[in-house]
C-alpha cells in the first residue's frame, strides 16, 4: 500500500470561494419550556433555569439559557431539515465529497446581554476555514470545516458567537 498519509485534495476552487462569505441563517426561539427541556437534558440543577422567581431575583428578565443553549431552530416542515431541525440550505453550503460526518469541536462565546426565555435569535454564518488532513484514527483523509455563526437577539444585541468544527470522511458520494 502507498503511504497512508498521501491523499488527493478534495477542496475545489468553488469550495474555497465560499470561505468568508456571510449567509443569513434561520431563527431560533428561546422559551421557558425549551430552556427547562435543555437544562433537564444536560442535568443542570440550578433553579435559575427552572423557576422564574429565582431568575428574576438574579436579575434576569426570564429564565436564562444555560451555557450550550442557543435556542431551538424554528421548525417548519416546508423548509426545515427533518434530522437537525435547522433551515435547509441556510448557512455556508459546502458539499463535501465524503459521506460520513463527525463533530470536531464547539466554541461558544457569550456577551454581556444574556439570552433569556422570550428571545428570538437570528443567526448569520460563514465558513471561516477549510482544511484537510490524514486521520490515523479514521483510517483516511478528512475534510475539516470551521463555521462561525453570530447570534443576535430581537433588540439587535449580539448575544453569542459559535464556532463549530465539522469533519467529513469515509466513502465518497457518487457524483
Amino acid at each position: 500500500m502507498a503511504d497512508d498519509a498521501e491523499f488527493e485534495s478534495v477542496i475545489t476552487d468553488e469550495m474555497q470561494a465560499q470561505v468568508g462569505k456571510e449567509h443569513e441563517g434561520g431563527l431560533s426561539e428561546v422559551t421557558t419550556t425549551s430552556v427547562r427541556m435543555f437544562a433537564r437534558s444536560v442535568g443542570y440543577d440550578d433553579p435559575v433555569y427552572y423557576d422564574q422567581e429565582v431568575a428574576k431575583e438574579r436579575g434576569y428578565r426570564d429564565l436564562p439559557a444555560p451555557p450550550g443553549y442557543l435556542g431551538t431552530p424554528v421548525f417548519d416542515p416546508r423548509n426545515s431539515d427533518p434530522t437537525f431541525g435547522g433551515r435547509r440550505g441556510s448557512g455556508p453550503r459546502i458539499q463535501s465529497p465524503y459521506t460520513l460526518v463527525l463533530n470536531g469541536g464547539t466554541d461558544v462565546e457569550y456577551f454581556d446581554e444574556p439570552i433569556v426565555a422570550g428571545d428570538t435569535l437570528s443567526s448569520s454564518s460563514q465558513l471561516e476555514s477549510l482544511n484537510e488532513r490524514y486521520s490515523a484514527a479514521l483510517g483516511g483523509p478528512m475534510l475539516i470545516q470551521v463555521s462561525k455563526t453570530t447570534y443576535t437577539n430581537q433588540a439587535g444585541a449580539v448575544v453569542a458567537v459559535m464556532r463549530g468544527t465539522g469533519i467529513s470522511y469515509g466513502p465518497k458520494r457518487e457524483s
Partner: protein
Amino acid sequence: MADQIYFEDLNEGDSIPELKKNPSTQQLVQWAAGSGDFYQIHYDTAFAQNTGLQGIIVHGALKHAFLGDLLHRMAGPEGRVKRVTCSYRGMDVPAEEYTLRGTVTRKYQEGAKNIMEVEIWGENEKGQKTTPGTGTVTLPSRA
C-alpha cells in the same frame, strides 16, 4: 447550588470542583429533544453501526454542555460563564461514567470584570481526556 466562590478564592493552578455525569440512553433522547438534533447515531444502534461506529455515541454538543454545567457550578449564582470551547478527540458511549474537571490557568481583571481562564476536560472511565477545552468565567469579588 454550592456556595459562591469569589475571585480571591482561586489561584492559577487550582482545581475546580469536579462534576460526574453518567449519560443514559434516556438522557441522549432528552438531549435530542432539548437541542433539536435527532441524528440517529445517538439513539439507533443499527444506524450507528451502519456508519462504522460500534454503537450509539454521546453527542459532542452534549459533552460541550456538560463542560458548560461544570463552569456554571464554578461561577455560582453571581458569576457568569463567558466562553466554553472544546474539541471532540474521542467518542464516549452511554452508561459509562464521564467526569468533568478543570484547572485555573489564568486570573486577571479587565475593567470591572474578574476573569478566570480554566483548562477543562471530560474524561472517560479509563481516564482518557476525550473532550479537552478551555473556559472563561467571571466571578464576583469580596472587595
